[in-house]
């Protein structure tokens, strides 16, 4: 929701990034303010996940130009774990499996790390168990996922739910949800998006990467951006998603791009 006394959370200017010497991001501009929901759409391979991972600090990507300020601070001064602790959260498009590490142990460590960062009390295993079970109810997740390895053998949709569970635990300032909707069945989509909506408030912001207008019926975006060739080439309101649904991407980006949130 766009509101008056919002603060700028993320300010991306001319961001360029490469992987193995190939430039993928070719000058991304984006401003995200508190309370806002931004959707990023675009063809396969246009650079959406790359953008998300560069923000989170994946070491495979080299930043080759531009700048990113997160709450006024140079994001690139921070290590990936520091970015997370500062409130940057990425729900992965393909959450990785970590066999042998129990989900509950992992979630608790992540939670407690953030709590101590925020100067709040950490929870012991029993307290955490109660706490996480509450959060799981929100996502209608079976508690036995706590006893399994992190994402180990989870179905595609289960992995996505586990990502949003983590978002619910960590209460990030900026949540980037990379195709969280893909792989979810219709009921799950309703449950998960409902969960995300409950977490959205006037102090945080969400960037949704999606291919489907359907997702945006559940989580209403303030802005819709189209990424193409490693840049945001078009920005509009939620009606832009409907346009894309009917017309596809071919027509977008033919005209000169306008700076996002200008």
């Amino acid at each position: 929701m766009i509101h008056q006394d919002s603060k700028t959370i993320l300010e991306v200017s001319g961001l360029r990034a490469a992987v193995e010497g190939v430039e993928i991001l070719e000058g991304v501009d984006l401003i995200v303010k508190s309370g806002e929901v931004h959707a990023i759409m675009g063809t396969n391979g246009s650079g959406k996940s790359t953008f998300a991972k560069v923000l989170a600090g994946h070491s495979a990507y080299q930043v080759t130009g531009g700048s990113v300020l997160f709450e006024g601070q140079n994001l690139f001064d921070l290590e990936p774990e520091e970015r997370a602790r500062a409130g940057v959260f990425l729900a992965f498009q393909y959450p990785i499996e970590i066999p042998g590490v129990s989900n509950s142990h992992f979630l608790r460590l992540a939670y407690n790390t953030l709590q101590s960062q925020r100067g709040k009390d950490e929870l012991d295993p029993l307290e955490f168990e109660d706490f996480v079970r509450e959060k799981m109810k929100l996502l209608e997740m079976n508690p036995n996922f706590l006893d399994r390895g992190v994402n180990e053998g989870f179905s595609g949709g289960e992995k996505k739910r586990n990502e949003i569970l983590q978002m619910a635990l960590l209460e990030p300032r900026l949540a980037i949800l990379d195709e969280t909707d893909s792989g979810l069945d219709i009921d799950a989509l309703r449950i998960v998006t409902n969960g995300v909506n409950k977490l959205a408030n006037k102090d945080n912001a969400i960037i949704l990467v999606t291919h489907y207008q359907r997702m945006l019926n559940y989580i209403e975006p303030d802005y819709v951006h189209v990424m193409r060739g490693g840049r945001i080439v078009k920005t509009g309101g939620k009606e832009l998603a409907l346009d894309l649904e009917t017309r596809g991407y071919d027509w977008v980006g033919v005209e000169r791009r306008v700076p996002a949130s200008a």
Partner: protein
Amino acid sequence: MSAVLQNLVNQPYKHGFVTEIESDVAPKGLNEDIIRLISTKKNEPAWLLDFRLKAYQQWLKMEEPKWPNVKYPQIDFQAISYYAAPKPKKKLNSMDEVDPELLRTFEKLGVPMHERAALAGVAVDVIFDSVSVATTYKQKLAEVGIIFCSISEAVHAHPELVKQYLGTVVPVGDNYYAALNSAVFTDGTFCFIPKGVKCPMDLSTYFRINTEESGQFERTLIVAEEGSSVSYLEGCTAPRFDTNQLHAAVVELIALDNADIKYSTVQNWYAGDEKGVGGIYNFVTKRGLAKGANSRISWTQVETGSAITWKYPSCILQGENSVGEFYSVAVTNNYQQADTGTKMIHIGKNTRSTIVSKGISAGHSNNSYRGLVRIAPTASGARNYSQCDSMLIGDQCGAHTFPYIQVRNQNAKVEHEASTSKIGEDQLFYFAQRGIGNEEAVSMIINGFCKDVFQQLPMEFAVEATKLLGFKLEGSVG
């Protein structure tokens, strides 16, 4: 692997210091005179000198094994001193009388052993440079008839027992290093659990190598009579040295009918520096004879140290329904080399064995699992399950598996599973994205990987092992 996977191992060795205690060191070199000197110094009976000389004669005819998957310069056995003993100032009756220097050493190791012994209810037989200087809880054990003392002491106090069992599981000519050990062993531990006695506490020995260039040849003999049981813990650390030190121990276990021996090791000898200079050569022969029906021998080891580890704790399953177990975590980093595994020799009917081996390699290290499962024609109904998993950290290291399976009985069942995995950058990124740094992430992944083995360890040992793995791998990732 990127910079992310480069730093987690290179933590300097925390136990690297030399305790200054006067040593009584034999001249370098090995010959019959040296063996006689050791025997005389230790005031041994003639049969033991005989045992040593027989071993020496066999050793002369043997060759250093070349089949392990390890590389090291030729060892000059004449450049080693085969005997070193701290000069005892007086006879010790309690811990208070132990050399304060020695106590400080344990303090530095984080093993305040007097507390440890009292708090954990562990009897600690301290081996310090080949000679025992203190034994605790002996009386408590004596009350139930358990003998737990240095092997030299046992030779004098219980010669008939030592004579009856010594060399029966690992014969003097078993292999090159066992023969060497049999010829020159200076001390070690003897443990005897009489019929029907369940040992009331874990028995523990902390080993230290202290005198530079003195080979360490420990000898351990554990006998569990009918219906008895014991859990024995062996932990090692060593001070930092630049020259390689040979460590060739022999451990023999004997379990009679319905007896149960659990032997746990955390091994952290000095591994050499990050360039591969120095470190202990750990060439060990460990073997258990499950002699009686329904007996059980269980080895659990966490191997983190030594420049080279060559070690195959084995079980000979002779008694009907006897059980052999081997749970192992072997970690190698920098230029460490490990060739370790087990042998399960099934002889009796319905014998069962389980092998769980977890190898972790980082840096430029090489980690090999070598295991033999042999089912003799007599072993109807024998079963074995083996699981060998390897984990790689970085891409300069190697993991190898050499399973040998020989089945000579139609009714036996042998299963083998193996896997290799890698701590991937994407896994570490996932942790980082949730605020968890690389070192903690690696430690969590490793502990998850080793869970099946760690849960076999006695509680306080498991905690120690977890910490040890943490700082062994610190810096190899990150």
